[in-house]
């Protein structure tokens, strides 16, 4: 393992956009869904960057766009000096060894007709990770490492429980010895007790292999638990990004504040909470100015007209709000 420089930037995302066109028939005008709209952030080596947001905020699309499972509409994703958004297919496949993804649905993310062994060995062979002779041993160790028995090698996905299936997904991601793993709601479909097991496993693997995570979830408590820094997304944009302690103790954006107060937490007595009015606007009709002004308790005329800039409010604490302190 090479010597790590502290805070070396592993992934740099500049002005990333992903728009989808919908509708658009012969007589209908096409509409644009701005799923990810101009996101800029960096991921440092060895950290866990959490991304939280409600459904439809574009966080999953963002994760997929980083890996180019979706083609970005604009922007750069720079990894190792290469722009993933512009790579040729062949180079992209090579790069995919370094960046892996774990999905939410432990049922849909495994091919139901392939044994775990067949699935893993296919991936290992694609990237020539180990020689054929050592493959079996390598994979069995891998399965043990994620908390499964070597017998899992011969099993089909449906023979596992949800938690075990998620462990298989982790094994698949880990099989190619990646540097960065994108966890897209990786524990959201699991029961509480299993969720804790998988979270611990992810932490443990991170330490052992020096991994970097982008941890996407709607669950703020989980994100806070596992992340070093947390970004909050609202309607395709980052509204706040900061070290998790600073974010939790002094959230700068009113949306983050509302999000924190909305979480039912078992450790405390009932507290006064900010209940946001109304629904998340549809990404088809994004509000003018600040996207949050329709639900913001502090909104003024300025917010309706002028979009706030995503800028540093404190050391390493960024927010997009006219009135952030």
């Amino acid at each position: 393992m090479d010597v790590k420089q502290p805070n070396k930037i592993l992934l740099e995302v500049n002005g990333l956009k992903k728009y989808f066109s919908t509708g658009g028939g012969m007589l209908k005008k096409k509409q644009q869904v701005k799923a990810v709209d101009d996101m800029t952030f960096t991921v440092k080596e060895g950290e866990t960057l959490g991304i939280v947001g409600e459904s439809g905020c574009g966080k999953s699309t963002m994760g997929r766009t980083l890996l180019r499972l979706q083609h970005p509409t604009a922007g750069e994703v720079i990894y190792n000096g290469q722009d993933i958004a512009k790579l040729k297919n062949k180079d992209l496949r090579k790069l995919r060894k370094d960046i892996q993804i774990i999905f939410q649905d432990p049922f849909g993310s495994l091919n139901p007709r392939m044994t775990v062994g067949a699935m893993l060995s296919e991936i290992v062979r694609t990237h020539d990770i180990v020689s054929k002779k050592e493959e079996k041993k390598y994979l069995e160790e891998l399965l043990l490492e994620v908390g499964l028995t070597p017998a899992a090698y011969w099993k089909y996905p449906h023979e596992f429980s949800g938690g075990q299936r998620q462990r298989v997904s982790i094994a698949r991601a880990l099989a190619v010895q990646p540097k960065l793993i994108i966890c897209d709601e990786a524990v959201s479909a699991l029961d509480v007790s299993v969720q804790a097991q998988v979270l611990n496993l992810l932490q443990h693997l991170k330490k052992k292999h020096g991994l970097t995570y982008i941890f996407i979830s709607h669950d703020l408590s989980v994100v806070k638990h596992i992340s070093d820094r947390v970004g909050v997304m609202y309607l395709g944009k980052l509204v706040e990004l900061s070290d998790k302690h600073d974010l939790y103790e002094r959230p700068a954006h009113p949306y983050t504040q509302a999000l924190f107060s909305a979480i039912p937490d078992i450790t405390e007595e009932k507290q006064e909470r900010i209940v946001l009015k109304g629904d998340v606007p549809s990404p088809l009709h994004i509000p003018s100015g600040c996207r949050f002004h329709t639900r913001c308790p502090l909104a003024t005329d300025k917010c309706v007209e002028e979009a706030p800039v995503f800028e540093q409010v404190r050391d390493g604490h960024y927010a997009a709000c006219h009135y952030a302190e």
Partner: protein
Amino acid sequence: MAQVEETHLPKEKIENPRVRMWKMMFGRLFQNKLAVFGGVVTFGLIFTAIFAAWLAPHDPTEQNYSAVLQGPSLEYWFGTDNLGRDLFSRVIYGAQVSLQAGLISVGIALAIGVPIGLISGYYRGFLDEYIIMRLTDAMLSIPALVLALALAAVLGAGLTNAMIAIGLVLTPNFIRLIRGEVLAHREKEYVEAGKASGISDFKLIIKHILPNTMAPIMVQATLAIAAAIIVEASLSYLGLGTQPPDPSWGSMLANGQGYLDSAPWIALFPGFFIFLTVISINLFGDGIRDMLDPKMK
């Protein structure tokens, strides 16, 4: 430490996976009594077709004017037709024609339809949307029999041409079916995960998507075999399929139609065998589909 979820379960014995897989698959197949029945009959029919020359007591084209329109007897098990030909022998030889018509024309349809459907569904785009789909729409808008008739007429009469015609007529169904399945599966996370693992498109299509579309293809194929046998029968009936005096179940059925009152067995026996073949292939196909599905117990 990583936590082993199965600590408290008894230690599992690891069986050779291939043996276990085949055991599981055939276990599933043999549990399904109807499928076993379908399989036995299907293979019986194939066997009959192959060994027709040894099994048939008479020459199927030999005419015996002293025994015209005779009912079933010890000599002529299924009776004789209006030209005094032994119906039992003709049914046996007819199995050759009908099974060929079914299997080969569906084989043609699969050979063309599966690759086109896979590519069309996986890559989408202009070719898929505006050429392949519109072409299949156009073909599907014409009744199958009419289209087969037109194609057979263009290609010329005869069994081979009839099979090609039937195969082409069946193709659009397969294209549409497979394309639809591929569309559903390409969005699944396991395909995305495969892509994210750097697996090539070709491998994703062949090793991941295709096996997951097998079940509906299987069902469609068995149904199509049945349909092909019937279309071939119809073509023969109209004089475009098997040429007389060669026997095919379809042409025999057509021939028997005129004698339904006086000699019903002429139509009855080929009709019954068409029915039996279609049913058993369907049952067998269902069984195979379940057998291939690892989720079935």
